[in-house]
């Protein structure tokens, strides 16, 4: 593998990072190889190891660092993504990586499905409430008692649905934070194991 191949494979794997960080890392390795000179280039590349491994260490390092800084939901999700990429790019046996990744994905999917159920129930309740309310309003001139019952029930259901909706949004944020935290921990362990040569 020559310099250009190493660098292009490295750049490809770093694409998930913010452009500035990806460029900074790629420039470091490019400069390093230029300084090594043609006579030491092959030895340096051999010592680097696979570009995918180098990239996975940078990615994992980046994910862990960001976890501590900003645990917001959006960054949380992209942290999950970066960790998955790092695991896949790592040199540990592919089956192990696949199992870890599948477990993480499965856990994430289960939690997200549960949250989605609550979310759907909330929207359903709110819609049902609105329909009940409308029915009540339409019935005002036919049967006042029935109308009052429908309107009351409608308002209650809309209220309950809205409360549930707010709860589900909160739950979703918590869940994503939890998953991201789990992935961050995973990446941290992974770096500890492969950080030293």
């Amino acid at each position, binding site marked *: 593998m020559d310099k250009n191949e190493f660098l292009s494979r490295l750049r490809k794997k770093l694409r998930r990072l913010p452009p500035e960080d990806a460029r900074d890392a790629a420039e470091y390795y490019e400069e390093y190889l230029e*300084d090594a000179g043609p006579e030491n280039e092959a030895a340096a590349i051999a010592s680097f190891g696979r570009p995918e491994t180098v990239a996975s260490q940078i990615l994992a390092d980046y994910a862990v660092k960001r976890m501590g800084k900003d645990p917001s939901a959006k960054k949380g999700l992209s942290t999950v993504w970066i960790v998955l990429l790092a695991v896949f790019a790592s040199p540990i046996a592919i089956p192990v990586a696949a199992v870890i990744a599948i477990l993480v994905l499965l856990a994430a999917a289960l939690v997200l499905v549960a949250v989605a159920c609550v979310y759907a129930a909330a929207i359903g309740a709110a819609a049902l409430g609105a329909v009940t309310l409308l029915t009540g309003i339409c019935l005002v001139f036919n049967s006042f008692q029935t109308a009052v019952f429908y309107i009351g029930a409608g308002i209650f259901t809309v209220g309950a649905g809205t409360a549930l909706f707010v709860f589900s949004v909160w739950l979703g944020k918590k869940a994503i934070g939890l998953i991201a935290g789990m992935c961050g921990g995973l990446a941290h362990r992974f770096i500890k194991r492969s*950080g030293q040569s």
Partner: protein
Amino acid sequence: MVFQLGSALLDACVLAVLSGGDEYGYVLTQKVKEVIDISESSLYPVLRRLKKEGCLTTFDRPFGGRNRRYYSITEQGRVKLKETSEEWKQYKMKVDRILSGGIDNG
């Protein structure tokens, strides 16, 4: 080498090399490698972290039609280097004591 080097000591080694003058990535790595058996790729994350922590700054200097990125230790970096050196001395003394004690008794 039989000993694993923690990140605190690796940080300190990098800072120690830089306290002797600004260096660029390749030479810095070679100097650390003379002492510690690290892979050539392991300094990038270290340098990045030290820069984020404010222990070093970088500047580019043109060389042969391109730029070389030099690393320079900051005041904060010198403080950190001093702290780690002190801790290392304490730690080394304790390990020495227990190792030599073991030899005397055996």
